[in-house]
């Protein structure tokens, strides 16, 4: 990996003047990834915050070629671009030694839910592209409606606290990173802005791995999480240290956990600063809080088991 000092001199992928909120993870993710893209990036983006806030006609914040076509098809759109690139190269219309990184972005709504089929198809077809999900845990662009990435217990505008529903969302979040690993693609990773070096290494790995790669990156959303803009990175750190958002990778089928907290922080530390979980701390919801912890412990154990199994198998 290049030196941080050198990377700071690299032009931002997303220029200043875009209208994403202060403390939003998406723009930081784009620029961190852009720094690791040695070849020029070509970007496609699903409808959502990242798209609407960066391309307000006749302006654009993107310093790389960018396309938006619709909500559920960022992966399919970029797959078509990548196919075009290969075709134009083979016909001599683009020089044979030309190099590009094709990157598709989507929020969790555009990735876990409505864009899931398109993503699955593009990954299965083996396009040389990287799909990046900036997961903020709900449909934040339209005002915080639940998605299948919304954590258990979160209050959203479509899982509001009611008389009988006192826990907010009553379903577990989809483990999309594991689902993508089940596609048997060369590289899948989950990352967090707090562990920036790990994130940048994963970006570099995704870009340089031939074939499809998938990155799932936690993207704090002060508006939706009901948090302070200045707390976004600290919340990312708590997400990792509580094992709510473990950082790991599946490299050619081998599971590796990239950070194992020495002392796992109780999940309440991650939940407490967030307005979307405030109700969980009200009297009567103690069981719900305990259940959230149990589920995180269970998932963490399962992840460690997968990593240890991979390790044993490699050792043999």
């Amino acid at each position, binding site marked *: 990996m290049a030196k941080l000092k050198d990377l700071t001199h690299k032009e931002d992928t997303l220029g200043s003047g875009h209208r994403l909120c202060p403390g939003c993870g998406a723009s930081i993710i784009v620029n961190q990834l852009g720094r690791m893209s040695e070849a020029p990036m*070509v970007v*496609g983006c699903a409808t959502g915050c990242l*798209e*609407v806030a960066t*391309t*307000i*006609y*006749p302006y*654009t914040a*993107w*310093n*790389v*070629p*960018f*396309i*938006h*076509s*619709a909500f*559920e*098809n960022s992966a*399919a*759109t*970029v*797959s*078509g*671009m*990548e*196919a*075009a*690139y*290969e*075709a*134009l190269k*083979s*016909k001599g*219309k*683009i020089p044979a030694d030309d190099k*590009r990184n094709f990157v598709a972005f989507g929020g969790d709504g555009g990735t876990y839910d409505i864009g899931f*089929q*398109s993503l*699955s*198809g*593009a990954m*299965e*077809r083996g396009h040389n592209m990287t799909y990046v999900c900036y997961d903020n845990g709900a449909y934040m662009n339209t005002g915080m409606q639940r998605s299948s990435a919304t954590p258990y217990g979160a209050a959203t505008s479509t899982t509001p606290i009611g008389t009988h529903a006192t826990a907010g969302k009553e379903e577990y979040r989809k483990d999309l990173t594991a689902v993508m690993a089940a596609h048997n693609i060369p590289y899948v990773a989950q990352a967090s802005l707090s562990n920036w070096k790990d994130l940048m290494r994963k970006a570099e790995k995704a870009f340089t791995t031939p074939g499809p790669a998938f990155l799932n990156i936690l993207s704090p959303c002060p508006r939706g999480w009901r948090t302070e803009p200045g707390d976004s990175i600290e919340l990312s750190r708590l997400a990792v240290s509580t094992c709510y958002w473990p950082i790991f990778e599946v490299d050619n089928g081998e599971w590796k956990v990239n950070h194992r907290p020495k002392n796992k922080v109780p999940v309440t530390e991650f939940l407490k600063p967030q307005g979307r979980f405030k109700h969980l701390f009200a009297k009567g919801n103690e069981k719900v809080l305990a259940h959230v912890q149990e589920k995180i412990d269970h998932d963490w154990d399962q992840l460690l088991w997968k990593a240890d199994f991979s390790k044993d198998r490699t050792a043999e």
Partner: protein
Amino acid sequence: MPKTVLKEVKNTPKAQQTAAALTGNSAVAMALKQADPDVVSAYPITPQTTIVEELAAYAARDHLKGKFVNVESEHSAMSSAIGAAAAGARSVTATSSQGLALMWEMLYIAAGLRLPIIMPMANRALSAPINIHGDHSDAMGARDTGWIQLFSEDAQEAYDNTLMSFRVAEHKDVKLPCIVNLDGFIISHAIARLDIMSDDDAGAFIGESSPTYGMLTDDHVETVGAFDGLGGFYFEFKRQQDEALQKAKEVLLDVSNEFAALTGRSYGLFEEYMLEDAETAIVVMSSAGGTTRVAVDKLRAEGKKVGMLKLRMFRPFPADEIAAAIGHCKAVAILDRSHGLAGTGGPMGDEVKAAMYHLDDRPECLNYVYGLGGRDVTVENIESVYSDLDSLDSATNSNTGFRYLNIRD
């Protein structure tokens, strides 16, 4: 107003042509291959499937140099086609019925982004009830998506329309996608005799692709599909888009003229068959045009002054040209191979009638819905329509409503 039909072509055909026996789908697949597309994004659906299969076979044998992308749905087929076209590739796909319906959202985006994607469509009824046979419900559901739509009477016209569609769609004044319609099974699966051009001649006629954007080839960085908020330019974009669509009429005529000089086969916006002195006429599209022509010949032999207008270009709709071609008739029947389900009959009926509203002396009109779900239309059925027109009483005809042709009671 552009001329509606072409002048007689006296040039000797210049293109090298061979007679072939092909299904409509094979003819279309061959035309697509001859256009040397950079990217084919395709998903199979009856009755389009053999187009996709044959393109895959061409690609497997290196007769097609572009990339073949086996997508997982029609929504992704159109999305991938959009990505490829925006990246600077000549981009094609094909579909039918439910496949088009699944693409619906993306049809508007392909047209709005001004991407000249070519999409043959083997027309099929829309569910429910599920029915795989030919009618125009699919095409009519997409009639105002901003795509150019051409209809083909037989395999020859489907082949010719496919070749010509690239020239029209990619023209600098147009830059819009185009659907080439051919009736499911009736044309798509029936083997017909047709003349095909050599790959070289077809390739030379179509020429190098001229993409709308050069996202991968231009030096400057482009943002495609930007967000246009309140106070933005959406309204102006749509006006420009409609102006471009209207220009497709003249471009189609120019391209058809060139094609006629090359092949000896001439096409206009529509075919005027025995219309000049016709007292009654039928307006129809696609394979039923052949059936109608036989009925016209038969009735003409009996001394009846009947004619036919067979529409080739449905979008943009050549309203003024149609009015000029049939306005002199006493009575006109408009045959719709789809049910409008608006309570007023078929969409063609509505549009043809509206096209003649400004005429001082309008023909009496009847609108028929026929052939749904692949129901046959016979020469006798068509004769019965001319007979209805003959006996039409202008004092009692309401010019509203519609009738069914060949429906069971």
